[in-house]
C-alpha cells in the first residue's frame, strides 16, 4: 500500500482496541445510500518508476523552449544552492509556524525576508507574503480603502499601463465590495502615463491610484511626478514593482516628495522558477502607520521568558482565525516556501549581485533591440528608458509571427493586440540576463 505503513497484524490489533470488526465499520455513520461506488475514472496505481517515466516523457514532449516572454514572469538564473536548501524536508514539509518554539527556522527566515523586501522597496514594514503579485494588487486595493479613512469614494485608478493581467485579477478579487476600479488612458507616443491624463480627476475623491514601474510595456514611468500628483490630490499611491528592477531603480518609498503608501508585486524574479505559472509569491510592504490594515501573516521579533531573542506571528488580531467575518482578508496561508527561495536568493546575490543581474538584463535588451530593429517590417514602438521588456510592432499579424517563432522552439513574446488594439500589431518581448547573443541571433533569424 503506497505510503501506508500498516501490517496485517497492526490492523487487527488496532481494530480490536477500537472495538470494530473491520475498517469499513469505521464509516458506519455515513448513510449507506451515500457510499461511493468504485472510482472507475481514476486509473490504476503507478509505481514511482512508471510515473517518473511518464513525467519525463511529458516534459520531453514540451521540450526546452527558448523563452522571450515576460509579462509578469521572468526567467533568471537561480543559484544551485537556493532550491537545494528550499527542498530540505525541514522547510518543505513544515506548516504555518503556529507553534513558534518549534518553528524558529521558518519564523527567523520570514523576519529576514521582511527586512530585505522592506529595504528593497524603501518601505517600513512588510508582511510574510501573499499568493501572487496579481492577487496582491487586489488585496492592496482593499487595504487602501481601509487605510484611507478620509476618502469615501471607493474609486481606484488603474491606468492602462498597469498589467491588464493584474487588472483582471484585481477586478475579480474586489468585485464584491463595491469598489470602482477605473482605467486611465496612456500616451500612445511614449507608452507611459502622463500627469496630464490624471488632471481629468483633479479635485475628485479618488481613494488610490496604481502605478506600475517598469510598466506593463517595460517603459519607465515618471514616478516622482505621478506620486506627487496623487498626494496633492489626497489620493494614496499603490506601487506595483518588479523586485529585481529595484536593484537599480528608485525604490517606491522614495518616489516623489513623500514616497508611496503601499507596494506590491510578484517575487518570482527572486529565485522562483517559471514553472508554468506558479507557485510564485506576492509581496506587500507599507508604512508603519498602515500595518494594522495589512492582510496576511506578519512576523515579529520578541523575547522568550528568559529574555532570549525569538520570533513569532504577530498582529494576529487582524486575521481570519481570530476576527472571522471582520478579518482584513480571508487569507490563511502565504507562500512560505517561495519566500524561502527568495530570501536565500537575495542573500546569495546581495545588493551588488542583483545590480549586476539587472544591469545585464538592460544590456541584453539593448543588444536585442539593436538587432531586431534591423529586421524589415519590425519597429520598436516606444523610445524612452525601459527595463526587461520592449514593445515591437510588425507589418503582419502577431499570431503569424509567434507561430513562425514557435516552429523554431521559441516563445517569442506576449501578443498585445487583444488588450491594446490601438497599438497595431504589437508584441511585448522580454530579454533577461539568461539570453545569450546566440539566442538573440536565433530569434532575429527566425523573423527573416
Amino acid at each position, binding site marked *: *500500500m503506497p505510503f501506508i*505503513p*500498516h501490517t496485517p497484524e497492526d490492523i487487527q490489533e*488496532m481494530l480490536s482496541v477500537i472495538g470494530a470488526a473491520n475498517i*469499513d465499520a469505521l464509516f458506519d*455513520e*455515513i448513510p449507506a445510500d*451515500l*457510499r*461511493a461506488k*468504485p472510482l472507475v475514472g481514476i*486509473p*490504476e*496505481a*503507478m509505481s514511482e518508476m512508471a510515473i*517518473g517515466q511518464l513525467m519525463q516523457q511529458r*516534459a520531453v*514532449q*514540451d521540450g526546452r523552449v527558448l*523563452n522571450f516572454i515576460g509579462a509578469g514572469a521572468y526567467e533568471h538564473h537561480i543559484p544551485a544552492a537556493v*532550491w*537545494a*536548501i528550499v527542498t530540505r*524536508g525541514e*522547510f*518543505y*514539509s513544515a*506548516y504555518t509556524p503556529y*507553534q513558534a*518554539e518549534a518553528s524558529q527556522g*521558518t519564523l527567523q527566515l520570514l523576519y529576514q525576508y521582511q*527586512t530585505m523586501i522592506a529595504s528593497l522597496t524603501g518601505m517600513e514594514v512588510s508582511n510574510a507574503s501573499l499568493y501572487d503579485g496579481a492577487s496582491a494588487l487586489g488585496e492592496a486595493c482593499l487595504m487602501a480603502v481601509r487605510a484611507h479613512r478620509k476618502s469615501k469614494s471607493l474609486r481606484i485608478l488603474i491606468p492602462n499601463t498597469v498589467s491588464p*493581467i493584474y487588472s483582471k485579477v484585481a477586478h*475579480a478579487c474586489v468585485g*464584491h465590495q463595491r469598489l470602482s476600479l477605473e482605467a486611465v488612458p496612456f500616451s500612445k507616443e511614449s507608452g507611459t502615463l502622463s500627469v496630464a491624463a490624471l488632471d481629468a480627476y483633479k479635485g475628485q475623491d479618488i481613494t488610490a491610484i496604481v502605478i506600475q514601474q517598469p510598466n506593463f510595456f517595460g517603459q519607465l514611468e515618471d514616478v516622482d511626478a505621478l506620486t506627487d500628483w496623487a498626494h496633492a490630490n489626497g489620493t494614496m499611491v499603490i506601487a506595483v514593482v518588479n523586485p529585481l528592477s529595484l536593484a*537599480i531603480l528608485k525604490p517606491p518609498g522614495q518616489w516623489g516628495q513623500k514616497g508611496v503608501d503601499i507596494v506590491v508585486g510578484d517575487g518570482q524574479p527572486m529565485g522562483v*522558477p517559471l514553472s*508554468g*505559472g*506558479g507557485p510564485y509569491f506576492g509581496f506587500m510592504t507599507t508604512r*508603519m502607520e498602515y500595518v494594522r490594515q495589512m492582510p496576511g501573516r506578519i512576523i*515579529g*521579533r520578541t523575547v*522568550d521568558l528568559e529574555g532570549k531573542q525569538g520570533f513569532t506571528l504577530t498582529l494576529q488580531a487582524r486575521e*481570519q482565525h481570530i*476576527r472571522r*467575518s471582520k478579518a482584513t482578508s*480571508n487569507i490563511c*496561508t502565504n*507562500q*512560505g*516556501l517561495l519566500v524561502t527561495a527568495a530570501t536565500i536568493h537575495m542573500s546569495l546575490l546581495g545588493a*551588488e*549581485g*542583483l545590480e549586476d*543581474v539587472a544591469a545585464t538584463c538592460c544590456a541584453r535588451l*539593448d543588444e536585442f533591440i539593436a538587432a531586431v530593429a534591423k529586421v524589415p517590417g519590425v519597429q520598436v514602438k516606444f523610445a524612452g528608458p525601459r527595463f526587461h521588456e520592449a514593445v515591437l510592432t510588425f507589418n503582419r499579424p502577431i499570431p503569424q509571427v*509567434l507561430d513562425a517563432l514557435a516552429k523554431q*522552439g521559441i*516563445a517569442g513574446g506576449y501578443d498585445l493586440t487583444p488588450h491594446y488594439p490601438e497599438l497595431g500589431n504589437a508584441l511585448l518581448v522580454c530579454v533577461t540576463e539568461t539570453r545569450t547573443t546566440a539566442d538573440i541571433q536565433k530569434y532575429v533569424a527566425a523573423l527573416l
Partner: protein
Amino acid sequence: MTEKLIFEHSRPGRSATAQRPHAVAAQSKIPSALRRQTRPLLPEVSELQAVRHFTRLSQLNFSIDTHFYPLGSCTMKYNPRACNQYAMLPELLGRHPLAPESLGQGFMTCLFELQEMLKEVTGMRGVSLTPMAGAQGEFAGVAMIRAYHHARGDVQRDEIIVPDAAHGTNPATATMCGCKVVEIPSLSNGDIDVEALKGAVGPKTAGIMLTNPSTLGVFERRIVEVAQIVHKAGGLLYYDGANLNAILGKVRPGDMGFDVIHMNLHKTFSTPHGGGGPGSGAVGVSERLLPFMPIPIVGKEGDKYRWLTEKDLPQSIGRLSAFMGNAGVLLRAYIYMRMLGRDGMHRVAEFASLNANYLSARLQKAGFEAAYPSRRASHEFIITVKRQARELGVNAMDFAKRLLDYGYHAPTTYFPLLVPECLLIEPTETEAKQDLDAFVEAMIAIQREAETDAEKVKTAPHTLPVRRLDDVRAAKQLDLVWKATG
C-alpha cells in the same frame, strides 16, 4: 541552539561572486532621477555562509520529515519525494505560463487529467485548478454562488449560513464576497442543529458553507436533509474540503448534494505545506455552476489541449491569479494521485480513520476525555483537557508545549472554538502504529507530570531553541524588520 541573523554574518565587500553574471561594461540608459541612489539592506555573505545559515535555520524547525505532526485540520501526511522530483524536471520548471499551447501539451495533459481525476473523486461535474489556497478556493466558491443567483436575477440573496464550528476562513470569505454571515449552532452530539437551520434559511439565503466531516471530527449524519432544506429555500451548498482526507473514495461531496467544493491539495493530495504555503485550492462544481468557474481551465479538443478563457466562459467569476494558479503544486498532486491510483484513494480515508479512531481509543483508555465519545472519529478527533485545567491548572496550551519537548509537534489547540481546552488531533494515514503508541506514552507521561510537577508542564517547552515567547511584547513593541543600528 540558535542562529544569528544573516545580517550579522555580513561584512562589507564580501559576496558570492560565482552566482552573479559577469558584469557587462555597457551601463543602461536609465536617467539618474529614476535610479536607486543607496543600496538596499541585503547581506554580504559567501555561498558557504549562506548555505550554512539557512541549513541551520531549517534545523530549528519541526516538520513532517523530522517529527510526528498531528496538527488537526491540517492533514500533515508524508509528502512523497517523487512528487517533488518529477514536478521539477527542467522542461517543466522552464515553462513560461504564457508560452504557446503547442509547446506545452505535455504539461497541459497532466493538468487536464488532474481535473478529470478530481471530478471523479468528488463527484462534481467540473473542476477549475486556479485557486492558490483553500481560502481562495472558498472565495471562488462563494463568488460562484453569488454569480449564479445574480444571473437568475435573484439578487437579494446575500446571506451565507455558517455553523459555529467552521474555520475562520468561512465567515471571512463570505464577507469578502459581499455577503452577510448567519451563524447556526451545533448540537451536543456534534451534528448541525437542523431546527436552527430551518429557521435560518429564507429568500435571502445565498448558501451554506459546510465541512463534512465537521471540524468537530464527526460526520454530519443528516447531510441529505440539510441539503434538501437549503436547496428548497433556493440556496446552494458549499463544501469546505479541509477534511476531504476523511472520506476520500468513501463518499463523494457531489453525491451528498453539494454544489461547489474546494479541495486543499496540500492536505488531501499531499503537496508540501512549505512552512505555510504554497497551498492549492482547486474547486469543483455541480452542473448549474459550470458557467461560472474561474479561468483558465484546460480544455480538450480532439487530441489537443487548450486554455479555456473568457471567450469560452463569458459568465466566469474571472481570474484569481495572474496565470495558472500554483501550477507546480498541481503537478505534485497529479503525481501523487497517479501513484496512489484508484484503490489508493479509499485507502487514504480508511487508514486515516483507522489511525484516528485507534489513537482516540487509546487516549480514552489512558484517561483522556474525548469531546464526542459516543461518535466515530473521522480522520481526526478532539480531546478536551478541561478537567486537567480545572483541577491541576494545566491547560491545552501547556500540553501542547510539553509535547514539543517530547519530540511531537502539538495538535491544533483552541480550535474549534466551542470545545473548551481542546486538542484537535489528526494523525493521518502515513503514521505507523508504533509511532502512535509512542505518542500515547508521551501524553500519559505529561499527564503524570501534570499531577506531580505541574510547573514543569506549565513552563514548557524546556528543550526547544526558545522558551515561550512574549507575544504581548511582539504586538506592542513592533519589531518587524531588522535595523542595522540595533
